[in-house]
């Protein structure tokens, strides 16, 4: 539909009358606010938006968005959303999910959705805990986590959601943080603009059951030391005074001090469009190396046909060849014979 006929939306247009039931101080509020503002700018008629979620605090999200919304069952949002998208490819379908919903019970649907490149925008609220069920460790909780079900510390090694998504053939993978409103909005817009599956990990604080999980990244001063922003076409620079950078070193990366001979153009220049997922994967492992920062931003964004478009096209092609199906003919297909009165 012609966008000029579009009503001009404001954030308010995407708020509902439902009382928001997250704990005071929960990072989900910030995410909700960012999504509402971004939706107002997307130039999409409101009725085209669909928000689908599983179960979890994060999955209550659709109730607070004045769009079509479906709060489904635990872990299954990507599959439900796939059904919606295959029937109506023109809808703008978003998924709200959590680290448990998307990576624990929902892990399989998540990786298959990514592999198929279904045109869904997935917002994965990663608070490294099961919030709704009051604080058990999750597949993204750090090793040794003491939580409700692990009084002596958890023994599972966590997933890196970015690595997992890339290993599952994702075409768009990004990471942002609840409290970095501008960065979050930019990331959401990038996701909205991507044609296929967009998997966005949003680091979110659960101030009740896992407060400060992302402290090292969010605390004002620490921040610049522990985090590097990925910007397409820009060098990987970080540090309080942008004095450090990431440089190629054989097949690996190294942290270098800028200055005395090393300039920004010597650094790794981020290429989100690199067709080889090995590049984005390498970036996703950086934070596990000593003294390396945690990257945020768009790791990978490459073009690939959307599943729903391929399915629609296959149907069109067959119809183009055979003509629209004729039920009468279909029923009479194959060997038939007549029994006379």
């Amino acid at each position, binding site marked *: 539909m012609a966008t000029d006929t579009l009503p001009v939306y404001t954030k308010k247009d995407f708020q509902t009358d439902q009382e928001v039931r997250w704990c005071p101080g929960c990072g989900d509020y910030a995410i909700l606010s960012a999504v509402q503002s971004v939706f107002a700018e997307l130039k999409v008629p409101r009725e085209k938006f669909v928000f689908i979620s599983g179960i979890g605090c994060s999955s209550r999200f659709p109730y607070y968005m004045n769009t079509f919304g479906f709060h489904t069952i635990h872990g299954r949002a990507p*599959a439900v959303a796939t059904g919606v998208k295959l029937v109506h490819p023109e809808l703008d379908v978003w998924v709200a999910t959590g680290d448990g919903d998307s990576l624990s019970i929902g892990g399989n649907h998540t990786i298959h959705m990514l592999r198929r490149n279904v045109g869904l925008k997935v917002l994965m609220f990663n608070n490294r805990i099961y919030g709704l069920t009051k604080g058990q460790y999750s597949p993204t909780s750090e090793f040794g986590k003491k939580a409700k079900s692990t009084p002596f510390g958890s023994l599972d090694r966590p997933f890196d959601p970015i690595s997992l998504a890339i290993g599952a053939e994702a075409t768009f993978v990004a990471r942002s943080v609840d409290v970095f409103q501008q960065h979050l909005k930019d990331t959401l817009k990038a996701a909205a603009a991507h044609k296929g599956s967009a998997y966005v990990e949003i680091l979110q604080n659960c101030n009740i059951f896992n407060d400060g999980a992302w402290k090292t990244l969010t605390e004002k001063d620490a921040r610049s030391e522990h985090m590097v922003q990925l910007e397409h076409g820009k060098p990987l620079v970080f540090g309080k005074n942008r004095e450090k950078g990431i440089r190629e070193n054989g097949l690996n990366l190294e942290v270098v001090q800028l200055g005395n001979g090393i300039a920004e153009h010597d650094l790794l220049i981020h290429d989100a469009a690199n067709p080889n997922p090995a590049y984005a994967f390498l970036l996703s492992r950086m934070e596990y190396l000593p003294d390396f920062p945690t990257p945020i931003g768009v790791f990978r964004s490459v073009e690939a046909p959307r599943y729903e478009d391929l399915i629609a096209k296959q149907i069109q092609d067959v119809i183009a060849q055979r003509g629209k199906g004729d039920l009468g003919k279909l029923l009479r297909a194959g060997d*038939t014979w007549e029994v006379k009165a």
Partner: protein
Amino acid sequence: MATITTPSETGLRRKREVIDQAVIRFAGDSGDGMQITGSQFTNTVALYGNDLSTFPDYPAEIRAPAGTLPGVSGFQVHFSSSEIYTPGDSVDVLIAMNPAALKVNLADLKKNGILIVNTDSFEENDLRKAQMTSNPLEDHTLDGFRLFAVDLTKLTRAALAELGLDTKSMDRCKNFFALGMCYWLYNRTMDSTYRWLDDKFKKKPLLAEANKLAMKAGYSYCEATEAFQVTYEIPPAKLTPGMYRNISGNAALALGFVAASQKSGLPLFLGSYPITPASDILHELSMYKDFGVITFQAEDEIAAITSAIGAAYAGALGMTTTSGPGMALKTEALGLAVAVELPLVVCDIQRGGPSTGLPTKTEQADLLQALYGRNSEAPIPVIAASSPGDCFWVALEASRIAVKYMVPVIVLSDGYLANGAEPWRIPELKDLPEIPVHFVTDPEGFLPYKRDPQTLARPWAIPGTPGLEHRIGGIEKKDVTGNINYEPLNHEKMVRLRAAKVEAIAQDIPEVVPAGEPDGDLLIVSWGSTYGSITAALRALQAAGNTHRIGHVHLRHLNPFPRNLGEVLKRYKKVLVPEMNMGQLLQVLRAKYLVDAEGYNKIQGRPFMVAEIEAKIEEVLA
């Protein structure tokens, strides 16, 4: 039995008996093409106008090594000049292409039945593969049958000598030699098989030729040799006039849903994960892209049903197909469909269980799962098909109810219906039920759970409709508004509303009319694929001059039951419920109507024999 004696071309004088019906089974190794042979024979007798019923009997999913017992594949055809309802308890003619086939199938051959064996495949190691210690052609195993030992392989090779084919290719034609013999035996023309061969081997005319030659050779072999003293004539049956085709249950289901999609104007969406014996529905529907059918092979059964729920939410006719183990995996999502009140059709093609059980065998033991296999109170309408052709109509009925009442519907079929085939009278488009659909579009006064006063259905408001933005989910909802609500009385109200909606369907389905006597000594109540055997048994008893007053109610709707069922049950002294399970319908009838019904349970992975039902009825009435 009429008997004409006709001079045959060769001058030999043979009897030609006119009989009412026959059962013939082709059995051989998976590689011997028995399914094709069977279907060809089926087409021919169908075109001729006989009534018929067929049943293929494949080996378990994996192909066993050639010549072994698990490798045996069979195809049975029952054809007649009067109406028939089953593929037949036992066979009049058995074609056994190898020792394994003989061993597996001999038990079903009638006393003094015709047995055609391929003697060329009874070498030492053929026997060993079939775990036989002695050669049945030589010991006395086969006494009491009319044995025709034919060098099928040699004769076929001889017939094809001219064509210059390699022996492998020649041997592939021996099933058509056997087919030719059967055509002769039942005085059938080979024309339709000729046509089929020409079409199938368009690109390889040589193979078409080879198979024709083999078939002719088989035909003339009987003609020429003294082998058979009799041939049989089975006149056409008096079937309801109309256009017919042969159809299997799974194919009929697929057609039924395409028809439902066309009649409702809704795009058909199938989310499915392959599983025996349901996979063929997915295969069939995936061919109908020209009808806009969307088939989605999901990563598992949960994604299959939840994607279908998403499709229904988006305004499609959403459906999913599976069998027992897959059905078990869908139960949580079924609860969601009940809570959000969206139309959905779930087909469970039952197979032997528990767990993986007998994947390729039939059973009726998922009824209680269909009725109660969900957490909490989540009532769902359940419908069952009674014959391969009936699957078509059941698909339409399930879709009609789902859409009209905004409710998930479960369709029960089973392996026997899925793979079995029968002649099916092709309906006229105008005879198909209408499936009216209404999407709300007017935001004025729209509330997600404001129900239609008559059907209690909530409005279907699909994404993309301006002004209807709203939220639904699996948490309990406030009546009318649909907002999340935990109030005690509202919950009880919603639970009762969901139940009332399903109960109300009883007003929208026909009352039961017992076949046979409207009241009397015995009522047989049944459902699903047992229809054929029971009907045949009742006809047989009648024919045998049974004098008791017997009625038969075969239920299509298992939830809710037809509204007059309770009253009908009271009209008979006794109630018998035959099922291929441990008594599942029985239990529901007893609970609901407090009727002291008796169960007759067979749980062997195969259908009731007509004779078994007859015997049971006589026992009950004795």
